[in-house]
């Protein structure tokens, strides 16, 4: 059987992006196995969030940080990536 995936137009950067997301999900699964229950807590948003919620918020927020950077600053996204990492650490620490 021949799996021709050329119609999906894969590129190395997009493959790396999805591999990172997959690794994050695997990491979350391992974390959940090691410490079950999702670590629910009430943070600065004043409602209960689990680890999964915090990852979702981190990824969604990072997407908007990158878009805002593209729209307001320019096409070089390394600083947007750094800002996103800081934002994600903040979300996991305080939300």
């Amino acid at each position, binding site marked *: 059987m021949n799996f021709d995936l050329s119609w999906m137009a894969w590129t190395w*950067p*997009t493959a790396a992006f999805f591999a990172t997301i997959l690794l994050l999900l695997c990491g979350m699964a391992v974390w959940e196995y090691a410490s079950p229950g999702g670590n629910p807590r009430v943070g600065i948003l004043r*409602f209960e969030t689990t680890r999964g919620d915090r990852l*979702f918020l981190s990824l969604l927020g990072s997407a908007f940080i990158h*878009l805002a950077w593209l729209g307001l600053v320019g096409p070089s996204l390394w600083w947007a990536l750094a800002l996103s990492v800081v934002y994600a650490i903040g979300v996991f620490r305080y939300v």
Partner: protein
Amino acid sequence: MEKTWNNKAWFLVLPVLVLVAFSAVIPLMTVVNYSVQDTFGNNVFFWAGTEWFEELLSSSRFWEAMVRNLIFSFIILTIQVPLGIFIALNMPKKGWGVPVCLVLMALPLLIPWNVVGTIWQVFGRNDIGLLGYYVNALGIDFNYVQDPFDAWVTIIIMDVWHWTSLVVLLCYAGLVSIPDAFYQAAKIDGASRWAVFRYIQLPKMQRVLLIAVLLRFMDSFMIYTEPFVVTGGGPGNSTTFLSIDLVKTALGQFDLGPAAAMSLVYFLIILLLSWVFYTVMTNYDAER
């Protein structure tokens, strides 16, 4: 470390995961791949990087369509949710009227979207349409083909006619699940009609209202078929919503890269707003 529940049940979810992977995740991955490339067809792609996203974010056409979409969704929710609750509250709870009302309410939901668009396209016309003709006969200059305001009115009334039933049916399901004991207790306490609604019916409808608001928001924000059939996005661009603009870009102009970038931004906005709605409503529920 003590395991508190059996996680093997998750394997039962596997078939759904496979289905979602094929119907949603793989197409989404393809859209991401397209969004950073350009193509002239024949499966040949050229790297474009973030060019389409930059172009999109500085495009007034995109932002105007976005504002139109947000205004449309806001108007739709403002009308359909209170109207749906009102109708559900006034529907009979027992007797022969129940099946009659339920069937009448379900009818608009059974009509395909393009047919709804065609019905209202004819209905609103001022030469042969019942609505357009009689509104003009009353002395009101109504022409949805030429006047942007009239086009908006037609599309909003059409959507209210088509989808309020969904809110009604969901609210009705919430209302009939309230045990009689609640009403009896309210009667003993001498509660007013408003108090019964505010402290018994509305809280009991909270969960179904959450579903109704989410469904109606997502659906109205992604609306395509009905306005496309009725107005084609016009007059001018006055009813060109994001989905219509997207289809014009992807299929009309065959600009797959820019269309993919637009799809992703569109998707992220829907994801964000749906999360906000869901979080606000579920936490309000939890606080109670």
